[in-house]
C-alpha cells in the first residue's frame, strides 16, 4: 500500500507541468493537451482520496470529469478548427483581436 501522500505529490507535479504548458506554449492544441493533463492530475488525486476514505464518490467524480473533458475537447477542437479556417494558424498569440 502506497501512502496517499505520494499520489498527491505526483498529482501536484503533473498539475504544475500542465500549468506551465498552458502559460508557455503557443500552439493552441498543445495548450489544450496541457489542460487535459491538469484534469488528469486532478482525477488522480480524486481516486487517491477515494481509496484513502474507502468511498467510491471520488471515482464517480472522475467519471464526471471525464465526461466534461470529452465535451470540452470536442467543442475546443471545433473552435480550433474554426479559427484555423479563418486564420490559417493555431498560434494563440495571433488571435488577439480583443486587444484593448
Amino acid at each position, binding site marked *: 500500500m502506497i501512502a496517499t501522500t505520494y499520489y498527491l505529490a505526483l498529482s501536484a507535479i503533473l498539475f504544475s507541468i500542465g*500549468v506551465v504548458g*498552458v*502559460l*508557455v506554449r*503557443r500552439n493552441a492544441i498543445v*495548450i489544450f493537451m496541457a489542460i487535459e493533463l491538469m484534469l488528469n492530475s486532478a482525477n488522480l488525486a480524486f481516486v487517491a482520496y477515494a481509496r484513502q476514505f474507502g468511498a467510491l464518490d471520488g471515482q464517480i467524480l472522475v467519471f464526471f470529469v471525464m465526461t466534461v473533458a470529452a465535451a470540452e475537447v470536442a467543442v475546443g477542437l471545433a473552435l480550433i478548427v474554426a479559427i484555423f479556417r479563418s486564420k490559417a494558424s493555431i498560434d*494563440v*498569440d495571433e*488571435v*488577439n*483581436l*480583443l*486587444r*484593448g
Partner: protein
Amino acid sequence: MFELVPLILAFPLAGLLINAAFGRWLDEKRIGIVASGATAAAFVIAVLQMLALSGNHFHAETVLLADWITIGDMHLPWQMRVDTLSVTMMLLVTGVGALIHIYAIGYMHGDPRFARFFVFLNLFVTMMLVLVSGDNYLMLFVGWEGVGLCSYLLIGFWYDKGDDNVGNARAGRKAFVVNRVGDLGFLIAMFLIFGAVGSLQFDDVLHFFEHHGAEVGGLATAVTLLFLVGAAGKSAQIPLFVWLPDAMAGPTPVSALIHAATMVTAGIYMIARSAPIFSLAPVSQMTVALLGAGTAFMAGTIAVAQWDIKRVLAYSTISQLGFMVAAVGLGGYVAGMFHLLTHAFFKALLFLSAGSVIHGVEHGAAASESAARGVAGEDYPSGAHHAHCDAQDMRNMGGLKDRMKLTFWVYLVGAVALAGVFPLAGFWSKDEILADAWHVGMVEGHWHGVAVYILLALAAIFTAFYMTRQIVMVFFGQPRSSAAEHATENPPTMTTPLVILAVLSVLGGALNLPGLHTLRRWLEHTHHFFHGIDFNLSVALSSTVLALAAIWLGVRVYHRRPLENATAPDQLQGVLGSVFNFLHAKWYVDELYAATILRLYEWQARFLAFQVDWDFWHDFVHDRVIAAAFRSVAAALSGPVDKGGIDRFFDGLALLVRAFAVRILRPLQTGYVRNYALGVMLGVIAVLGMMLVN
C-alpha cells in the same frame, strides 16, 4: 318530431357559413341555391313542427339545447319553444323568407357583393328564428339584437351609394341608433322582470304575472310600457318610426323581407307573447292602442304625399304596423297576428313588385341610354344605379301596365288586398281589427276604443287612397320618361315568387274566416288571452264602402287628369296646398327631432367639450395651473441643480474613470490568451497564499 326544431336554426346557419366561407369561389346560381335551399329547408322543418303540434294536441313543447348562463341560482337555458304562436312566426319567416330569397337571386344578379348579400339574408333568417323560437326573454333579445344588426348591415348594403355616397350608410346608422332607443326600453323591462321574478323563462314570467301580478302593483304597467318602447323601436311606431322610411335604402328584397314582412313584426310578436302582462295593465294597453292607431293614421297621411314608390310602401308599412299594434293594444291579439300574417303576404308582394318595377325601369333606363349611344342593349347589373333619372320616383313612371303585365297584375292584387277590398286577405284582417276597436269602444264602452276606431278608419281610407294613387301613377297613363318607355318584364326567378305571394294575398283571409276562426283556435292554445270577437257586418260594410270611396277618389284625382310630365306638381298639391307640403315633409318629424333632441344634445355636447373640457380643464387647469407649476419647478431643477451640480459632478467622475481606463486598464488588455491565463494563475497563487496564511 320536436327534437328536429334545432335544425330550423342549423339550416340557415349552415347556409350562411357555406356562403361566407366559399362564397367567393361559387357562382351566383350556387350561392342562391344554397341560401334559398337553407331557408326552404327551415320552412320544411317549420311545417313539421306544425304537424308535430297538431299531433301533440297543440301543447307547447320546449327543446333544451344547452345550459347557457349559470350564475349562482340563476339558470338561463338555451331552450327553444315550440307552441302555436312561435310556429306561426316560424312558418311566416321561413315561408316568406324562402320566396324572397328566390326573388333576390334574380334581383341581385350581377351585384359584386352577391354572396355577402345572401350571407346577410341567411343570418337574418337565423336571428329571426332565434327571436321567435326562444323560450326566454333573453334569447328573444339575442334574436332581437341579431335582426337589428342584419337590418343595419342590409340597409347599408350598398354603403357606397346614396347622398354624397354615404347616404345609405347613414340610413343604416339611423336605423341602428333609433332601434337602440327601443332596445334600451326592452332591456330595462327585462331587468325589472328579472328583479321581480328571478327568471326570464316565458313560462315562469307569465305564470308569475298571471298569479301574482296584482300584488306587485305598478310593475306590470312599468314593464309593459318599457316593452312598448322596445316594440315602438322595432315595429316603427311613434315616435321611433323615423328609421323605417330611410331603411328603403337597402335592396328591395331586404325591404320586403325585413322591413315589411318579418323583423318589424317582432314588436307585435313580443307584445303578443307578453299578453298576460299587458292584460294586467289597462293603462299600457290603452297607450299601446292609441299609439298604434296614431301611428297608423299619421303614416297613412304621409304616404299620400310621397313620390318614391318604396317610400309610399314604407309609410304604408308603418301604418299597417300601427293597425297591428292597435289591435294587440285592444286585446285583439288574434286580429293583430292575423293582420301580421296577411300583411306579410301582401306587403312582401307589394315590395317585391315594386322592386320588379324599379328593376324594370332601371333596365329601361339602361336600354334607352345604350340605344341613345347606338350600342346594342347590354345586360346592366341591377346594382349599378347609374340611371340619370331616379328609378324609384313614381313621377318618372307611368304606363307600365302594358310593358310589365305580370307585375301590374300582381301589384294590383297586392294593392287591393292592402286597401281592404272584399274578399282579399287585407279585408278580413283589417276588419277584424276594426271590429275589435268597435267592440272595445261601443260594447265595452271605453272612450279610447272609439278614438282608435276613428283613427283606424281614417287610416284605412288613406290606405285605399294612396294605393290607388300609386297604381295610377305607376301603371296608367303615358310613360313620363324614356326609362319607363323601355321598361321590360323581369325573369321568372323574380316573378314566380310574386305569383305565389299574390295567391297568398288573395287567399290569406281564409286563415281566419268568420265562423271558422282557424287561426284563433290555433293560437288559443298558447294563451287563453288569445280570443277574438265575431264578424261585425256593419263594420265590414262601412269600411268596404269607405275603401271603395277612397279608391274612387284616387281614380278621380289621378286618372282623370294624369300627371303630364315628371316635373309637374302633384294634383293634390293644387287642392291641398301647404298641407300637401306638410305631409310630403313627413309632418316635419325628422326636423322636429333635429330641432329638439339633436339640438339639445349637440348643445350639451358642445358645452361639455368646449367649455368644460377644453376651456376649463385643458386651458385653465392643465395649461395654467398644473403645467405652469410643473414648468417652473422643472426649470429650477434642470438649471442650477441638474446642470450646475449633478451634471458637473458626474462629468468629472466620468473623466476620472476614463483616465484610469486609458492609462491603466487598457494596456492590460493585451488580447493574448496566455497573458490572461497568467493573470488567472496569479490569482490562484494569491488565493492559495491567503488560505495558507490563515
